[in-house]
């Protein structure tokens, strides 16, 4: 493979040693930088956000999809009807849709995809999305009827997730390495450790896309990301990892900086069952020991909005509870004394992102100021998943919860916070079957207050999405309603 290329390249070089400069790339190609490489390319078979960042909306499509503002819009389903009782959804599919291997996409594929995702032995990472589906029926080629076991106000929202894309029975098993979807771009090549290349799908059913070739390049090192952007090896870096350098891009007319919001509530996750953190006064003390603005400035170069509970501030139902856990070291020390805790050393295990590694060092210094020592261990994601998320062998960790609308995790059994509150579980259960907006808002406010009052975790800030792109590129997403690099609306301007 590479070998023959290498030899051919040498041969070609000998023949035409003069033509050194590669042809000027036409302005229909784009190279997009990404920090993490996906482990595979099947969005229905893995939890990694990087999978969706490559294939969502580009290669794979679902019945519905998110647009750049997070609204749900039609995708493969051109329209739908919901029955009075909210239990039956009748989707009308677009006709003439083909998978990249040439086979037709019809109602039977939708039935197959949904049933595959909800099956007992499904490896779908978000099986909960499909939990309420009772039956899927392919009425005719373009009509699908989905029956729910209980009303679910967020069903259309769920169907827009990358985990709910429509795949074909013939190719589903190999999507990890050779993804076959219905989207406007087809998969061309994946040089592991380096890049994934997509090309325009000439037979796309929907609106034509402007780009011919899309290359996702994986650059995990922030300085390499900076250098690649500066040298214009990469045209756009939607989740740019070196936020300190943004002022330089802002000053440079060749680039533009795109700052938006994400769904990422960044929190100091706390093991609620590890003594003495099982004492709410100790958690309360930690909350007052932390200076959020210092963390945002020191770890994120000032990008990010402080939060006082686990909820996105741009959501209309958000409650600003930051004052409840304001920076007050005196109070923190008083609370610790009241709890009878002294000589406390906590284990802080940090995953790789800068918000965690840098934020962790800042928090460690802030905690030291109130008399809490920390023992920092830096972990790779795989280790973090094993030790912290699965085995819950930690006291403190910092992580950004990037799933949209995820306050429900506080009601989960055995989640890694080890927070066990019947009150919270009841609230979320009620919320799930409530459709009335006013009641929902009230329930959400109660839930936000509850976790803030229990000081389950220390709530730090809402992660900003800071991206850099060539100034001539139009149509990149500003916000990050879901993890995606939607290239369908992207084009080069002048």
């Amino acid at each position, binding site marked *: 493979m590479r070998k023959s290329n290498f030899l051919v390249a040498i041969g070609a*070089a000998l023949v035409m040693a003069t033509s050194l400069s590669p042809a000027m790339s036409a302005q229909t190609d784009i190279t997009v930088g990404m920090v993490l490489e996906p482990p595979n390319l099947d969005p229905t078979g893995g939890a990694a956000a990087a999978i969706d960042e490559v294939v969502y909306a580009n290669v794979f499509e679902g019945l519905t999809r998110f647009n750049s503002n997070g609204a749900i819009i039609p995708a493969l389903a051109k329209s739908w009807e919901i029955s009075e009782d909210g239990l039956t959804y009748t989707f009308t599919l677009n006709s003439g849709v083909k998978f990249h291997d040439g086979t037709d996409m019809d109602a039977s594929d939708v039935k197959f995809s949904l049933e595959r995702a909800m099956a007992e032995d499904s490896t779908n990472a978000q099986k909960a999305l499909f939990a309420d589906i009772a039956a899927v029926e392919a009425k005719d080629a373009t009509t699908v009827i989905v029956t729910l076991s209980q009303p679910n106000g967020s069903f259309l929202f769920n169907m827009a997730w990358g985990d709910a894309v429509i795949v074909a029975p013939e190719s589903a098993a190999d999507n990890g390495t050779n993804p076959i979807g219905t989207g406007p771009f087809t998969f061309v090549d994946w*040089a*592991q450790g380096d890049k994934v290349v997509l090309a325009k799908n000439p037979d796309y059913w929907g609106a034509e896309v402007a780009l011919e070739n899309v290359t996702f390049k994986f650059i995990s090192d922030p300085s*390499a990301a900076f*250098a*690649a952007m*500066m040298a214009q090896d990469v045209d756009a870096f939607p989740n740019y990892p070196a936020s300190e350098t943004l002022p330089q891009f802002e000053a440079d007319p060749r680039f533009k900086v795109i700052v938006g919001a994400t769904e990422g509530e960044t929190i100091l996750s706390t093991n609620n069952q590890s003594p003495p953190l099982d004492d709410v006064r100790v958690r309360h003390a930690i909350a007052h020991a932390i200076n959020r603005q210092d963390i945002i400035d020191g770890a994120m170069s000032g990008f990010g909005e402080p939060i006082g509970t686990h909820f996105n501030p741009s959501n209309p139902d958000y409650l600003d509870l930051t004052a409840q856990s304001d920076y007050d070291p005196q109070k923190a020390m008083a609370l610790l004394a009241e709890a009878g805790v002294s000589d406390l050393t906590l284990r802080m295990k940090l995953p790789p992102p800068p918000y965690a590694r840098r934020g962790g060092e800042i928090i460690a210094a802030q905690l030291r100021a109130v008399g809490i020592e920390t023992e920092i261990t830096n972990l790779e994601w795989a280790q973090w998943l094993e030790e912290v998320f699965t085995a819950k062998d930690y006291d403190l960790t910092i992580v950004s919860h990037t799933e949209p609308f995820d306050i429900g995790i506080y009601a989960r059994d055995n989640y890694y916070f080890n927070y066990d509150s019947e009150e919270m579980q009841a609230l979320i259960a009620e919320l799930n079957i409530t459709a009335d907006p006013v009641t929902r808002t009230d329930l959400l406010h109660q839930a936000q207050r509850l976790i803030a009052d229990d000081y389950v975790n220390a709530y730090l800030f809402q992660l900003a999405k800071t991206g850099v792109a060539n100034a001539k590129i139009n149509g990149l997403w500003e916000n990050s309603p879901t993890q995606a690099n939607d290239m369908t609306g992207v084009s080069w301007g002048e």
Partner: protein
Amino acid sequence: MLIFTLKRLVSLLFSLVAASVVVFFVIEIIPGDPAALMMGISASPEAVEELRQQLGLNLPIWQRYFTWVMGLLQWDFGISYTYKTPVSDLINDRIWVSLPLTIYALTLSTLIAFPVGIIAAANRNSKTDVGIMGATQLGIAVPNFWFAMILVLIFAVSLRWFSAGGFPGWEIGFFAGMKSLTLPAIALALPQASILARVMRSSLLDTLSEDYIRTARAKGLSKRQTLWRHALRNALIPVLTIIGLQFSFLLAGAIIIENVFFLPGLGRLVFQGITQRDLIVVKSVVMLLVFAVIVVTFIVDIAYGIADPRLRGNSVRGSAGE
């Protein structure tokens, strides 16, 4: 000579077997179940067990060791846990970045070191010599990753002569490929060139002080003539040994540099393999690198034995300090 070669061959095999045992068992200790990792957090225990069966993780450890070694011999390293493609494909791809990079760096190092070492030796104790020796001391003291950062700062970002990293692939052309390997090769080559230049110089000086050189000088050959006609050839033997050793060192030493320049080479593969717990990749690549080092050492030993019969009784390495 035959007995010497056979002896070295036996020791080569011994080293390879021992290395494979060490690599296998060290990596087997690493905590974490590859099957669970491949399936993700929310996988059911049955599915994980199924995968364990498929991967042969339930077999006794010695049986897995032999399966692995037999696979190695046939260039079959198994399936990557994370990428789910054959490891041999990954290696086949990456080796065509790492190998050219190593050769490039070694060539640069030699091209710099030879003239520098010769000039220093020819002008022993002159200002040039002192300056060169000082410069090489500096070269040895510079960490290559720091040098790489400085190179990127100057040549990629400020002057924009080179790309800051990444590898476009050989398919877009030989020169474009080599260009993207230039900064990494320089970063790798500089410390090695410094070492090599010093070896070149001291080896030349040693040869120049030998009796037959004195004789040649006494016969009326000029200093320059003796240097070129007699000393250089004899001084090359230890220098070539060092070059052989540097080859394996550079191949492995590229781990950091490949990470600084995000080149898709073997070093980055193994580093990523560790962070992603893709132990089958780690195991195979480490073994491959160790294999390369052992074989190059063997070749150097044999070459040394041919060049200098006195050393046949002993290994080159074993006689350091004599």
